[in-house]
Protein backbone atom coordinates (compact mmCIF):
# COMPACT_ATOMS: atom_id res chain seq x y z
CA UNK A 1 0.00 0.00 0.00
CA UNK A 2 2.95 2.32 0.60
CA UNK A 3 3.66 2.07 -3.08
CA UNK A 4 0.11 3.09 -3.91
CA UNK A 5 0.44 6.03 -1.61
CA UNK A 6 3.77 6.94 -3.21
CA UNK A 7 2.08 6.99 -6.57
CA UNK A 8 -0.85 8.94 -5.24
CA UNK A 9 1.46 11.48 -3.63
CA UNK A 10 3.36 11.80 -6.90
CA UNK A 11 0.12 12.38 -8.76
CA UNK A 12 -1.08 14.96 -6.28
CA UNK A 13 2.27 16.75 -6.39
CA UNK A 14 2.23 16.82 -10.18
CA UNK A 15 -1.36 17.99 -10.24
CA UNK A 16 -0.75 20.64 -7.63
CA UNK A 17 2.32 21.94 -9.40
CA UNK A 18 0.51 22.01 -12.73
CA UNK A 19 -2.37 23.95 -11.23
CA UNK A 20 -0.06 26.40 -9.54
CA UNK A 21 1.86 27.06 -12.71
CA UNK A 22 -1.33 28.13 -14.43
CA UNK A 23 -0.81 31.54 -12.89
CA UNK A 24 -4.48 31.78 -12.11
CA UNK A 25 -5.19 32.69 -8.53
CA UNK A 26 -8.00 30.20 -7.91
CA UNK A 27 -6.21 27.34 -9.63
CA UNK A 28 -3.17 28.26 -7.59
CA UNK A 29 -5.19 27.84 -4.40
CA UNK A 30 -6.58 24.53 -5.61
CA UNK A 31 -3.05 23.40 -6.37
CA UNK A 32 -2.00 24.46 -2.92
CA UNK A 33 -4.68 22.25 -1.35
CA UNK A 34 -3.55 19.29 -3.43
CA UNK A 35 0.09 19.83 -2.51
CA UNK A 36 -0.77 20.11 1.19
CA UNK A 37 -2.60 16.82 1.03
CA UNK A 38 0.33 15.30 -0.81
CA UNK A 39 2.78 16.46 1.82
CA UNK A 40 0.64 15.03 4.61
CA UNK A 41 0.28 11.71 2.83
CA UNK A 42 4.01 11.67 2.20
CA UNK A 43 4.76 12.00 5.89
CA UNK A 44 2.13 9.37 6.60
CA UNK A 45 3.61 6.89 4.18
CA UNK A 46 7.17 7.68 5.22
CA UNK A 47 6.25 6.79 8.80
CA UNK A 48 5.02 3.41 7.46
CA UNK A 49 1.44 2.23 7.42
CA UNK A 50 -0.22 -0.01 9.98
CA UNK A 51 -3.68 -1.31 9.28
CA UNK A 52 -6.47 -0.51 11.75
CA UNK A 53 -4.46 -0.48 14.94
CA UNK A 54 -4.55 3.03 16.35
CA UNK A 55 -1.98 3.83 19.01
CA UNK A 56 -4.11 3.81 22.15
CA UNK A 57 -3.42 2.35 25.53
CA UNK A 58 -6.38 0.12 26.14
CA UNK A 59 -7.94 0.12 29.57
CA UNK A 60 -6.23 -2.06 32.08
CA UNK A 61 -2.94 -1.88 30.24
CA UNK A 62 0.12 0.29 30.65
CA UNK A 63 1.17 0.54 27.04
CA UNK A 64 -0.34 0.06 23.62
CA UNK A 65 -0.36 -3.46 22.29
CA UNK A 66 2.60 -4.53 20.25
CA UNK A 67 2.33 -3.62 16.59
CA UNK A 68 0.26 -0.47 16.97
CA UNK A 69 0.61 2.18 14.37
CA UNK A 70 3.43 4.71 14.53
CA UNK A 71 2.03 7.64 16.50
CA UNK A 72 4.70 10.21 15.78
CA UNK A 73 4.00 10.82 12.10
CA UNK A 74 0.34 11.15 13.03
CA UNK A 75 1.19 13.92 15.44
CA UNK A 76 3.36 15.57 12.80
CA UNK A 77 0.61 15.42 10.21
CA UNK A 78 -1.87 16.81 12.66
CA UNK A 79 0.41 19.75 13.17
CA UNK A 80 0.94 20.07 9.45
CA UNK A 81 -2.77 19.95 8.70
CA UNK A 82 -3.54 22.73 11.10
CA UNK A 83 -0.67 24.84 9.85
CA UNK A 84 -1.73 24.14 6.29
CA UNK A 85 -5.20 25.31 7.12
CA UNK A 86 -3.86 28.56 8.54
CA UNK A 87 -1.78 29.16 5.45
CA UNK A 88 -4.64 28.33 3.14
CA UNK A 89 -7.02 30.59 5.00
CA UNK A 90 -4.60 33.44 4.70
CA UNK A 91 -3.89 32.70 1.05
CA UNK A 92 -7.57 32.75 0.35
CA UNK A 93 -8.08 36.04 2.13
CA UNK A 94 -5.17 37.42 0.18
CA UNK A 95 -6.51 36.12 -3.11
CA UNK A 96 -9.76 37.82 -2.42
CA UNK A 97 -8.15 41.11 -1.57
CA UNK A 98 -5.75 40.89 -4.47
CA UNK A 99 -8.70 40.46 -6.78
CA UNK A 100 -10.41 43.44 -5.20
CA UNK A 101 -7.32 45.58 -5.38
CA UNK A 102 -5.88 44.57 -8.70
CA UNK A 103 -8.95 43.65 -10.64
CA UNK A 104 -7.53 40.44 -11.97
CA UNK A 105 -6.88 36.91 -10.88
CA UNK A 106 -4.19 36.39 -13.48
CA UNK A 107 -0.94 36.53 -11.62
CA UNK A 108 1.00 37.55 -14.69
CA UNK A 109 -1.16 40.61 -15.03
CA UNK A 110 -0.39 41.67 -11.47
CA UNK A 111 2.29 44.23 -12.01
CA UNK A 112 1.60 46.83 -9.39
CA UNK A 113 4.70 46.02 -7.39
CA UNK A 114 7.06 45.37 -10.23
CA UNK A 115 7.44 47.95 -12.93
CA UNK A 116 7.22 46.80 -16.49
CA UNK A 117 10.36 48.41 -17.74
CA UNK A 118 13.08 47.96 -15.21
CA UNK A 119 15.59 49.99 -17.14
CA UNK A 120 13.37 53.00 -17.22
CA UNK A 121 12.07 52.37 -13.74
CA UNK A 122 8.74 54.02 -14.26
CA UNK A 123 5.98 52.28 -12.46
CA UNK A 124 3.30 51.20 -14.82
CA UNK A 125 0.18 52.17 -12.99
CA UNK A 126 -2.41 51.27 -15.55
CA UNK A 127 -2.83 49.06 -18.53
CA UNK A 128 -1.41 45.87 -17.20
CA UNK A 129 -3.56 45.49 -14.14
CA UNK A 130 -6.59 44.37 -16.01
CA UNK A 131 -9.63 46.19 -17.22
CA UNK A 132 -11.34 46.35 -13.84
CA UNK A 133 -8.51 48.12 -12.14
CA UNK A 134 -8.30 50.46 -15.06
CA UNK A 135 -12.00 51.18 -14.91
CA UNK A 136 -11.80 51.72 -11.18
CA UNK A 137 -8.97 54.16 -11.61
CA UNK A 138 -10.94 56.03 -14.17
CA UNK A 139 -13.88 56.19 -11.83
CA UNK A 140 -11.77 57.40 -8.97
CA UNK A 141 -10.24 60.00 -11.17
CA UNK A 142 -13.70 61.20 -12.10
CA UNK A 143 -14.87 61.43 -8.49
CA UNK B 1 -52.17 16.42 31.47
CA UNK B 2 -50.63 18.64 28.92
CA UNK B 3 -47.29 17.12 29.66
CA UNK B 4 -48.67 13.61 29.23
CA UNK B 5 -50.17 14.53 25.92
CA UNK B 6 -46.89 16.05 24.93
CA UNK B 7 -44.93 12.94 25.88
CA UNK B 8 -47.41 10.77 24.12
CA UNK B 9 -47.22 13.09 21.16
CA UNK B 10 -43.46 12.85 20.99
CA UNK B 11 -43.42 9.07 21.18
CA UNK B 12 -46.19 8.83 18.68
CA UNK B 13 -44.40 11.20 16.39
CA UNK B 14 -41.16 9.26 16.64
CA UNK B 15 -42.74 5.92 15.86
CA UNK B 16 -44.81 7.35 13.08
CA UNK B 17 -41.78 9.04 11.70
CA UNK B 18 -39.53 5.95 11.73
CA UNK B 19 -42.24 3.92 10.11
CA UNK B 20 -42.78 6.53 7.43
CA UNK B 21 -39.07 6.79 6.83
CA UNK B 22 -38.83 3.05 6.29
CA UNK B 23 -41.80 3.05 3.97
CA UNK B 24 -40.56 6.00 2.04
CA UNK B 25 -37.19 4.36 1.57
CA UNK B 26 -38.79 1.25 0.22
CA UNK B 27 -40.79 3.40 -2.12
CA UNK B 28 -37.65 5.11 -3.30
CA UNK B 29 -36.03 1.73 -3.77
CA UNK B 30 -38.92 0.62 -5.86
CA UNK B 31 -38.80 3.72 -7.99
CA UNK B 32 -35.08 3.52 -8.42
CA UNK B 33 -35.01 -0.11 -9.28
CA UNK B 34 -37.92 -0.13 -11.69
CA UNK B 35 -36.79 1.12 -15.06
CA UNK B 36 -39.79 3.21 -16.09
CA UNK B 37 -40.95 6.26 -14.20
CA UNK B 38 -44.54 6.23 -13.07
CA UNK B 39 -44.37 9.23 -10.84
CA UNK B 40 -45.65 12.61 -11.95
CA UNK B 41 -43.73 15.01 -9.77
CA UNK B 42 -44.97 18.49 -9.08
CA UNK B 43 -44.68 21.39 -6.67
CA UNK B 44 -47.47 21.85 -4.20
CA UNK B 45 -48.03 24.56 -1.65
CA UNK B 46 -49.28 23.55 1.79
CA UNK B 47 -50.90 26.13 4.07
CA UNK B 48 -49.52 25.88 7.60
CA UNK B 49 -51.03 25.83 11.04
CA UNK B 50 -47.65 25.49 12.62
CA UNK B 51 -46.45 28.85 13.91
CA UNK B 52 -43.37 28.66 16.08
CA UNK B 53 -39.91 28.05 14.72
CA UNK B 54 -39.71 24.59 16.21
CA UNK B 55 -43.08 23.58 14.83
CA UNK B 56 -42.19 24.82 11.42
CA UNK B 57 -38.87 23.08 11.45
CA UNK B 58 -40.23 19.77 12.63
CA UNK B 59 -43.07 19.79 10.16
CA UNK B 60 -40.81 20.59 7.25
CA UNK B 61 -38.20 18.05 8.33
CA UNK B 62 -40.60 15.22 8.75
CA UNK B 63 -42.33 15.95 5.51
CA UNK B 64 -38.95 15.60 3.86
CA UNK B 65 -38.33 12.21 5.39
CA UNK B 66 -41.69 10.75 4.56
CA UNK B 67 -42.65 9.15 1.26
CA UNK B 68 -42.92 11.19 -1.87
CA UNK B 69 -42.56 14.65 -0.37
CA UNK B 70 -39.70 17.04 0.14
CA UNK B 71 -39.93 20.42 1.82
CA UNK B 72 -38.39 23.17 -0.21
CA UNK B 73 -39.07 26.44 1.49
CA UNK B 74 -41.34 28.52 3.62
CA UNK B 75 -42.87 31.59 2.13
CA UNK B 76 -41.97 34.99 3.45
CA UNK B 77 -44.69 35.24 6.13
CA UNK B 78 -44.29 31.61 7.11
CA UNK B 79 -47.85 30.64 6.28
CA UNK B 80 -47.14 28.28 3.44
CA UNK B 81 -44.72 25.52 2.76
CA UNK B 82 -43.55 24.76 -0.77
CA UNK B 83 -43.23 21.04 -1.27
CA UNK B 84 -41.91 18.89 -4.06
CA UNK B 85 -44.18 15.93 -4.43
CA UNK B 86 -43.51 12.82 -6.43
CA UNK B 87 -47.06 11.69 -6.72
CA UNK B 88 -49.17 14.71 -5.85
CA UNK B 89 -49.80 15.89 -9.38
CA UNK B 90 -53.06 13.98 -9.64
CA UNK B 91 -54.54 14.99 -6.32
CA UNK B 92 -52.60 17.78 -4.67
CA UNK B 93 -55.35 18.63 -2.20
CA UNK B 94 -55.52 15.06 -0.98
CA UNK B 95 -51.80 15.00 -0.50
CA UNK B 96 -51.91 18.26 1.45
CA UNK B 97 -54.67 16.99 3.67
CA UNK B 98 -52.77 13.79 4.33
CA UNK B 99 -49.71 15.73 5.37
CA UNK B 100 -51.65 18.07 7.60
CA UNK B 101 -53.33 15.15 9.30
CA UNK B 102 -50.40 12.79 9.40
CA UNK B 103 -47.58 15.07 10.20
CA UNK B 104 -48.49 18.60 11.16
CA UNK B 105 -51.11 17.47 13.62
CA UNK B 106 -48.69 15.09 15.33
CA UNK B 107 -46.02 17.73 15.46
CA UNK B 108 -48.32 20.28 17.03
CA UNK B 109 -49.49 17.72 19.56
CA UNK B 110 -45.92 16.99 20.49
CA UNK B 111 -44.92 20.64 20.76
CA UNK B 112 -48.07 22.18 22.24
CA UNK B 113 -49.23 19.28 24.30
CA UNK B 114 -52.76 19.75 22.97
CA UNK B 115 -54.83 17.27 21.06
CA UNK B 116 -55.87 18.87 17.86
Amino acid at each position, binding site marked *: MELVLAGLVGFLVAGGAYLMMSGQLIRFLFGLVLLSNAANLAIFAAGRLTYATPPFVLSGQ*AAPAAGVANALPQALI*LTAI*VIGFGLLAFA*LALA*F*RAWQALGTTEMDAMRACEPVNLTVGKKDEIGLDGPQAYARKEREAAE | MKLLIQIYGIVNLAIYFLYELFVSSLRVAWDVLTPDMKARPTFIVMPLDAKTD*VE*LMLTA*NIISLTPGTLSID*LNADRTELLIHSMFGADNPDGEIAAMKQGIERRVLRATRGVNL
Partner: protein
Amino acid sequence: MNSTILKTATRVLLPIFLIASVLILLRGHNQPGGGFIGGLMAVIGVALYAIASSVDEARKRLIVDPLVLAGIGLACSVLGGLWGAANGGAFLEGVWPFYEYVPGEGAKGWPIGSVLLFDAGVYLTVLGAVCAILFALEEAVYTDKEGRS
Protein backbone atom coordinates in the same frame (compact mmCIF):
# COMPACT_ATOMS: atom_id res chain seq x y z
CA MET C 1 -28.98 32.77 5.15
CA ASN C 2 -32.59 33.63 5.51
CA SER C 3 -34.07 30.29 6.47
CA THR C 4 -36.26 29.91 9.52
CA ILE C 5 -35.70 26.21 9.48
CA LEU C 6 -31.93 26.49 9.50
CA LYS C 7 -31.97 29.24 12.09
CA THR C 8 -34.07 27.14 14.38
CA ALA C 9 -31.86 24.15 13.85
CA THR C 10 -28.68 26.04 14.61
CA ARG C 11 -30.14 27.36 17.82
CA VAL C 12 -30.33 23.74 18.88
CA LEU C 13 -27.07 22.74 17.28
CA LEU C 14 -24.82 25.45 18.73
CA PRO C 15 -25.03 24.22 22.33
CA ILE C 16 -24.71 20.64 21.14
CA PHE C 17 -21.54 21.49 19.28
CA LEU C 18 -20.10 23.46 22.15
CA ILE C 19 -20.80 20.74 24.67
CA ALA C 20 -19.47 18.09 22.32
CA SER C 21 -16.36 20.14 21.69
CA VAL C 22 -15.63 20.53 25.38
CA LEU C 23 -16.17 16.81 25.91
CA ILE C 24 -13.78 16.10 23.07
CA LEU C 25 -11.24 18.45 24.60
CA LEU C 26 -11.48 16.78 27.99
CA ARG C 27 -11.45 13.22 26.66
CA GLY C 28 -8.67 13.94 24.22
CA HIS C 29 -5.87 12.71 26.39
CA ASN C 30 -7.28 9.21 26.44
CA GLN C 31 -9.63 9.03 23.48
CA PRO C 32 -9.56 10.53 20.02
CA GLY C 33 -9.83 14.27 20.34
CA GLY C 34 -8.04 17.04 22.15
CA GLY C 35 -7.67 20.75 21.84
CA PHE C 36 -7.53 20.97 18.08
CA ILE C 37 -10.41 18.73 17.33
CA GLY C 38 -12.47 20.22 20.09
CA GLY C 39 -11.67 23.72 18.94
CA LEU C 40 -12.56 22.90 15.37
CA MET C 41 -15.84 21.36 16.48
CA ALA C 42 -16.71 24.50 18.37
CA VAL C 43 -15.79 26.59 15.34
CA ILE C 44 -18.12 24.60 13.16
CA GLY C 45 -20.94 25.15 15.59
CA VAL C 46 -20.31 28.87 15.59
CA ALA C 47 -19.90 28.89 11.83
CA LEU C 48 -23.27 27.25 11.37
CA TYR C 49 -24.79 29.76 13.68
CA ALA C 50 -23.15 32.64 11.84
CA ILE C 51 -24.37 31.38 8.50
CA ALA C 52 -27.90 30.84 9.68
CA SER C 53 -28.16 34.13 11.52
CA SER C 54 -25.42 36.62 10.87
CA VAL C 55 -21.85 37.32 11.74
CA ASP C 56 -22.93 40.06 14.07
CA GLU C 57 -25.18 37.65 15.96
CA ALA C 58 -22.36 35.17 16.19
CA ARG C 59 -19.98 37.84 17.45
CA LYS C 60 -22.47 38.71 20.15
CA ARG C 61 -22.71 35.06 21.13
CA LEU C 62 -18.94 34.81 21.50
CA ILE C 63 -18.89 37.95 23.69
CA VAL C 64 -15.10 38.31 23.39
CA ASP C 65 -13.45 39.49 20.18
CA PRO C 66 -12.39 36.21 18.56
CA LEU C 67 -8.81 37.39 18.07
CA VAL C 68 -8.57 38.30 21.72
CA LEU C 69 -10.05 34.91 22.55
CA ALA C 70 -7.34 33.30 20.48
CA GLY C 71 -4.75 35.44 22.19
CA ILE C 72 -6.03 34.31 25.56
CA GLY C 73 -5.81 30.76 24.30
CA LEU C 74 -2.19 31.14 23.30
CA ALA C 75 -1.46 32.75 26.64
CA CYS C 76 -3.03 29.74 28.35
CA SER C 77 -0.80 27.40 26.40
CA VAL C 78 2.28 29.40 27.27
CA LEU C 79 1.22 29.47 30.90
CA GLY C 80 0.69 25.74 30.79
CA GLY C 81 4.25 25.47 29.58
CA LEU C 82 5.62 27.84 32.18
CA TRP C 83 3.78 25.99 34.91
CA GLY C 84 6.09 23.06 34.37
CA ALA C 85 9.09 25.33 34.57
CA ALA C 86 7.82 27.14 37.63
CA ASN C 87 7.34 23.78 39.25
CA GLY C 88 11.07 23.21 39.04
CA GLY C 89 11.00 21.21 35.85
CA ALA C 90 11.48 22.10 32.25
CA PHE C 91 9.33 24.28 30.06
CA LEU C 92 6.25 22.35 28.93
CA GLU C 93 6.82 19.68 31.53
CA GLY C 94 3.56 18.10 32.63
CA VAL C 95 2.38 18.95 36.14
CA TRP C 96 -0.48 16.89 37.59
CA PRO C 97 -1.17 18.05 41.12
CA PHE C 98 -4.08 15.67 41.73
CA TYR C 99 -3.05 12.73 39.60
CA GLU C 100 -0.62 9.91 39.94
CA TYR C 101 0.22 6.67 38.25
CA VAL C 102 -0.01 3.50 40.27
CA PRO C 103 1.81 0.66 38.56
CA GLY C 104 -0.54 -2.18 37.86
CA GLU C 105 -3.63 -0.07 38.48
CA GLY C 106 -3.24 2.88 36.16
CA ALA C 107 -3.67 6.57 36.73
CA LYS C 108 -5.65 7.68 39.76
CA GLY C 109 -7.13 11.01 40.78
CA TRP C 110 -8.21 14.11 38.92
CA PRO C 111 -6.60 14.55 35.53
CA ILE C 112 -6.19 18.27 35.92
CA GLY C 113 -2.89 20.03 35.41
CA SER C 114 -0.59 21.94 33.18
CA VAL C 115 -1.15 19.69 30.20
CA LEU C 116 -4.88 20.28 30.33
CA LEU C 117 -4.30 24.01 30.57
CA PHE C 118 -2.06 23.73 27.55
CA ASP C 119 -4.65 21.80 25.59
CA ALA C 120 -7.40 24.17 26.66
CA GLY C 121 -5.23 26.96 25.30
CA VAL C 122 -5.04 25.11 22.02
CA TYR C 123 -8.82 24.79 22.04
CA LEU C 124 -9.39 28.48 22.66
CA THR C 125 -6.81 29.56 20.12
CA VAL C 126 -8.27 27.42 17.40
CA LEU C 127 -11.76 28.53 18.24
CA GLY C 128 -10.90 32.21 18.35
CA ALA C 129 -8.55 32.28 15.40
CA VAL C 130 -10.66 30.32 12.97
CA CYS C 131 -13.76 32.25 13.95
CA ALA C 132 -11.87 35.48 13.41
CA ILE C 133 -10.90 34.37 9.92
CA LEU C 134 -14.41 33.22 9.10
CA PHE C 135 -16.04 36.39 10.36
CA ALA C 136 -13.59 38.67 8.63
CA LEU C 137 -13.89 36.79 5.37
CA GLU C 138 -17.63 36.76 5.59
CA GLU C 139 -17.77 40.46 6.31
CA ALA C 140 -15.30 41.31 3.59
CA VAL C 141 -17.08 39.26 0.98
CA TYR C 142 -20.58 40.31 1.84
CA THR C 143 -19.85 43.93 2.50
CA ASP C 144 -20.32 46.35 -0.33
CA LYS C 145 -18.18 49.36 -0.93
CA GLU C 146 -20.11 51.57 1.45
CA GLY C 147 -19.57 49.10 4.25
CA ARG C 148 -23.10 47.69 4.45
CA SER C 149 -23.53 44.01 4.70
